[in-house]
């Protein structure tokens, strides 16, 4: 059974290596097929693992296999351990399933690109890294996967290497993630110091309960989660990451990598439960992010950036869910979000591809007429995102909102933020829908004839659209909760909503979502309400980039320049010149002793004899 888990993990790596080593011997399309095939096979392996797990009783389901001891230092031993339990199988299915769909989509999207093989190698590398992250049996492997997904993200954001904006965005993403990695590493150091182990089985039991150390550990892990999931304050990299190709945005920055932070919190939830303050902090950050991102999304004019801020906002929901302890709810929303957010990105990608790279929504007009099937897919994704029943988002998002009511006054604030977010979601999503896929407007000059795209793109979008509709039907709290039951042994929720709370929050959210859609319709479709001019605050994304520039970048630039001028140039660079000069002068002086005169050499002999005589006299 664990062979299935290992196969699932290693197949994408094999694919990446094969594409890399084959080089020009594999055709561009061939690289795409290879990558898709390995990811799909990984999905099949995940299903096998899942089926095998279903056949076992719940207590026997977690299964850890260690292939060998990776690190052994003194009394610390860390193995290459894969843990296959309910949570990791859940994530494996999502990562490999949605990943396979998106990689298949990219065959069509990246067709005729110059560097397709590199793209597919990176995509397979990413899938492997993400699987390593979710399958790792100890925090060390999780950190390894964490770093590798960061690397894959950097490589793929900066895929269009000639574009300077892409390169800068890749650097920004990597540096911000490095901050998170650093805090995570510090947390791991503390854990090793206080418990001596990092495997999931042991470290949670052995870690300190409460106190400063527990808070620091949880804070460090939260730092990593915040960076990877683009929450306040480490969120500014995500909109810029849209410089990468659209499938990358779909896979990495919507469906899987950015949700790794949520997975981390759920996986290490005992550590967070030892530090309630930090858990509340996580929920608070999530709530703040979801409102802020929703506001910013209202004024963005790049279609991908709107969806990116939407992602940020939805992950805020997941953080709220994880922060209040409703872990299965957060994971449920993670799954449905993967479906409909990928769908939105891929549908937008069809439009972008058809318009030869146009991403400004003010110029992407009239697509409702020319691309009806894409319009339908986008509509499905939008309805799921807003949370309209029977689409997927309704079931997952509302259960999170309901769980917050369990938490006193703090939970009430979270609930209010969540409801406000629902309204904003409806507004910005349907603003996008009505503007881009509206019926009116002239056709874009670049519109191709065969507008809807090749079979690979259309089919995968269709699959995702179906999933966005039915994906939520797996759980309808509180009546039918197979997902919670499945995940409970490894992620026992500490906040459960009552049926009354569930019903009330569902009703409120539904109503607000509809209100948002109605306002968007009035403003952008029917044009009965005038759209006010965008606030500079919102257009400048709440000035976060400017703040970081002022606080971090400028002082660092100043210091480095000063160091360069006052220290590096005169001392370091100058000293090199001086060292060589000194050698030259010294050699010149020493070479004067070699004048070729026998007499001088004889004098040297005599002087040596004089010295030696003293030595012999003094040393008896």
């Amino acid at each position, binding site marked *: 059974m664990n062979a299935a888990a290992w196969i699932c993990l290693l197949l994408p790596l094999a694919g990446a290596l094969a594409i890399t080593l084959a080089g020009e011997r594999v055709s561009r399309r061939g690289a795409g097929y290879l990558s898709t095939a390995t990811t799909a096979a990984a999905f099949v392996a995940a299903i096998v693992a899942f089926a095998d797990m279903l056949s076992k009783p719940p207590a026997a389901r977690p299964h850890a296999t260690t292939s060998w001891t990776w690190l052994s230092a003194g009394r610390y031993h860390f193995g290459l351990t894969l843990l296959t339990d309910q949570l990791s199988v859940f994530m494996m299915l999502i990562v490999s399933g949605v990943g396979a769909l998106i990689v298949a989509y990219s065959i069509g999207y990246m067709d005729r690109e110059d560097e397709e093989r590199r793209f597919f190698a990176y995509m397979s590398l990413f899938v492997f890294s993400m699987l390593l992250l979710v399958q790792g049996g100890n925090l060390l492997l999780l950190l390894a996967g964490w770093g590798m997904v960061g690397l894959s993200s950097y490589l793929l954001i900066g895929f269009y290497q000639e574009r300077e904006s892409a390169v800068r965005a890749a650097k920004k993403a990597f540096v911000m993630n490095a901050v998170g990695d650093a805090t995570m590493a510090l947390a791991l150091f503390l854990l090793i110091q206080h418990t001596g182990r990092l495997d999931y089985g042991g470290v949670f039991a052995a870690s300190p309960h409460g106190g400063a150390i527990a808070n620091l550990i949880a804070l460090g892990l939260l730092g990593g989660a915040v960076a990877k999931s683009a929450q306040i304050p480490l969120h500014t990299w995500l909109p810029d990451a849209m410089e990468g190709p659209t499938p990358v945005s779909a896979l990495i920055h919507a469906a899987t990598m950015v949700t790794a932070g949520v997975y981390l919190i759920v996986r290490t939830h005992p550590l967070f439960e030892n530090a309630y303050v930090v858990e509340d902090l996580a929920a608070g950050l999530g709530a703040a992010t979801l409102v802020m991102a929703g506001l910013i999304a209202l004024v963005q004019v790049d279609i991908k950036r709107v969806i990116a801020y939407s992602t940020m906002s939805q992950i805020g929901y997941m953080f709220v869910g994880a922060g209040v302890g409703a872990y299965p709810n957060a994971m449920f929303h993670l799954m449905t979000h993967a479906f409909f957010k990928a769908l939105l990105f891929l549908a937008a990608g069809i439009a972008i591809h058809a318009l030869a790279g146009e991403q400004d929504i003010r110029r992407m007009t009239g697509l409702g007429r020319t691309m009806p099937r894409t319009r339908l897919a986008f509509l499905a994704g939008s309805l799921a995102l807003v949370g309209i029943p029977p689409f997927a988002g309704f079931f997952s998002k509302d259960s999170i909102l309901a769980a917050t009511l369990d938490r006193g006054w703090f939970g009430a604030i979270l609930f209010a933020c969540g409801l406000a977010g629902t309204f904003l979601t409806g507004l910005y999503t349907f603003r996008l829908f009505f503007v881009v896929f509206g019926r009116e407007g002239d056709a874009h000059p670049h519109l191709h004839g065969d507008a809807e795209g090749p079979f690979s793109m259309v089919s995968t979008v269709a699959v995702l659209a179906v999933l966005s509709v039915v994906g939520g039907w797996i759980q309808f709290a509180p009546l039918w909760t197979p997902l919670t039951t499945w995940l409970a042994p490894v992620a026992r929720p500490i906040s459960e909503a009552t049926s009354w709370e569930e019903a009330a929050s569902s009703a409120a959210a539904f109503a607000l979502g509809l209100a948002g859609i109605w306002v968007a319709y009035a403003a952008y479709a029917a044009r009965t309400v005038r759209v006010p001019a965008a606030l500079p605050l919102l257009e400048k994304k709440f000035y976060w980039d400017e703040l970081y520039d002022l606080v971090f970048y400028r002082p660092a630039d100043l210091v480095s320049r000063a160091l360069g001028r006052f220290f590096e140039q005169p001392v370091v660079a100058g000293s090199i010149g001086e060292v060589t000069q000194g050698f030259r002068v010294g050699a010149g002086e020493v*070479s004067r002793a070699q*004048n070729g*005169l*026998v*007499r001088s050499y004889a004098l040297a002999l005599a002087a040596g004899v004089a010295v030696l005589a003293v030595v012999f006299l003094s040393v008896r």
Partner: protein
Amino acid sequence: MHGPDVAWYLVLAALLFVTGALGVLVRRSPLIILLSVEIMLNGANLALIAFARRLGHEDGQVFAIAVMAIAASEVVVGLGLIVAMGRRHVELDVDKLRTLRG
């Protein structure tokens, strides 16, 4: 008969040796240098014979005779070199012979 102790002879020998060394290091003509080397050897001989007297063995004197023979051979070769140099009209100045210069 008495007379000065062996120590006096040794100091004299040291003086001879140093004078010879001075000549070797200061003069430029190879002939004079060779003569100075002879003085150094004679200083050593004097020391040997003084110690032979002090210790009552004649080994020092035997050694001194051997030194004399070796000095003679060395002078033969050295003078042969100088004559050869003179025949080829090479200037007899040690400072001018600089091919050892690095």
